């Protein structure tokens, strides 16, 4: 097993933990953390491919910087929405928010 495969495996595990957490967690904060894990799995993939395979070493790094920036913006929006929901139903548990049928 060479080291590229190790990194890819770790990234996949991160992604799967995130996906599992997203489906399992009932608290919106927990779900947000899970999403961040998934994003970092993708970021790790970019870095690993970049380090071991890509001819131009800048591309993957730039990609990861963009991913980090977008993740920050996403967290800001998600937290503000969670806060807005908390003000209305006094809870961050998704089980409590069930007015919509879908």
């Amino acid at each position, binding site marked *: 097993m060479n080291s590229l495969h190790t990194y890819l495996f770790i990234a996949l595990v991160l*992604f799967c933990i995130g996906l599992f957490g997203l489906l399992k967690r009932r608290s919106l904060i927990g779900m947000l953390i899970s999403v961040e894990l998934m994003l970092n799995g993708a970021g790790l993939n970019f870095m690993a491919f970049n380090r071991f395979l890509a*001819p131009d070493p800048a591309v993957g790094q730039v990609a990861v910087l963009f991913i980090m920036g977008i993740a920050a913006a996403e967290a800001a*929006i998600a937290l503000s929405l969670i806060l807005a929901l908390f003000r209305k139903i006094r809870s961050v548990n998704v089980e409590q928010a069930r007015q919509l049928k879908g």
Partner: protein
Amino acid sequence: MAGDLLLFLPEAACLLMALALFGLSLPRVQDQRRVHSWTMGLSLVMVAAGLAGLFQEGSLFFEAYRVDLFSQFFKLLLAVALFLVLSICRQLTGVEERYQPEFFLFLTTCTLGMMLMVSAVELMTLYVALELSSFSLYILVPLRSGDNIDVEAGVKYLFIGITASCVMLFGMSYIFGAVHSTYLAKIAATLPLWIHQPGAVIGLLLTLSGLLFKLAAFPFHFWAPDVYQGAANQVTTYIATASKAAAVALLIRLTALSAGTSLYLLDVLMALCVASMTLGNLAAMVQSDLKRMLAYSSVAHAGYVLMGVLTMTRLGYSSAMFYSLAYMVMNFAAFMVVVKVASGGQDLKISDLAGLHRRAPLLALTLMLALFSLAGIPPTVGFTGKFLVFAAAMQDGHFWLVLVGMINATLSLYYYLMVIKAAYLAEPAGPREALAVSGPTRALNYALIAAMVYLGLFPRQVLELAEQAVRNIF
């Protein structure tokens, strides 16, 4: 330099409009009328910029951004969609007054994101543009005033959306691993080398899933009914028209990469197409809320568009482009009636339409034509669009797919006719006063009716433009 600016004209206009709206949102006290007239004026400038830039060609930002007829067609479509949506925002009853400039601002940044998206030919550019438009929508959905369902819908939309974008990003990382480049041109050139690696095919499929979310196609459709119901009527109109068109554009660009080389991809797309059509139509039948019904019908329409896309031929792509234009016009017409009838910004039950033909004959007529068009009855634009898409799929040898599509179109007639029945035949429970239809609304109605019939009877010009545009992306 001046030439480059000309290439970037529609986006530059959009950016300026966003900046101007940001400025307008700063004062503590705002004059709503003034803000709205400014917004309308600026968006008219944007439509003009879109028209002026229609036949530009070139590339910008280290080849990451391509301007061609294909992208400009969709940019013009988006500018027109924004203008139309803004034109029904004069009485913005669904949104708190102090947030209205922000409301216009986020609609504009969302359009900007979509404009960047249809021109992006590099994966990171595409991702950032997609997120710009998605993030604006995440904020727009919970801006509705009143009960809690808006925030709930917003949270739901946000979490499903960011999950879809994570999946998409993960797929992109595999494509990057296979190709070692993020440029779509490079990906297409080296495609025969890696398309048989399972990892790369998975990567491509995961990448497509982000777009299927935007389009509300089958496995990613479940946000649609809740978001359509929970968001303010104007925002729903925007999501149902502009955001669909941009998703179709991107789907065409990405599937064109693998044209005819991957059977897996074709099989998956066919399965999704059938599932979207059938599920959307069946679920739409049992809805009593008009917006939820239109949401499920949009899932079904995503299936029809996919049918054109999955042929991966020029004819299929140009008919899918025509269909997205048709869908924009007819869906906007239907939602415009929803916005006007629900003048207090509330949700509308189908039964609330009772007696509409007497309360507002013109709105009832527009609604009827829009729904006939959505169902695909000649001589409307919906019929022509469906006919073109089905014909393209037939020519590519997908007989069964077309058959399923036909059956679905017939099924959909049921629930569209139910709405028309409510508007024309049902008697309202109590006396309802007539709806006042203002002069500009009247003009908008006539324009929409004319557009639906004209494009239905004479699709040639638009279709030729679409065919010419598709030639650029192969």
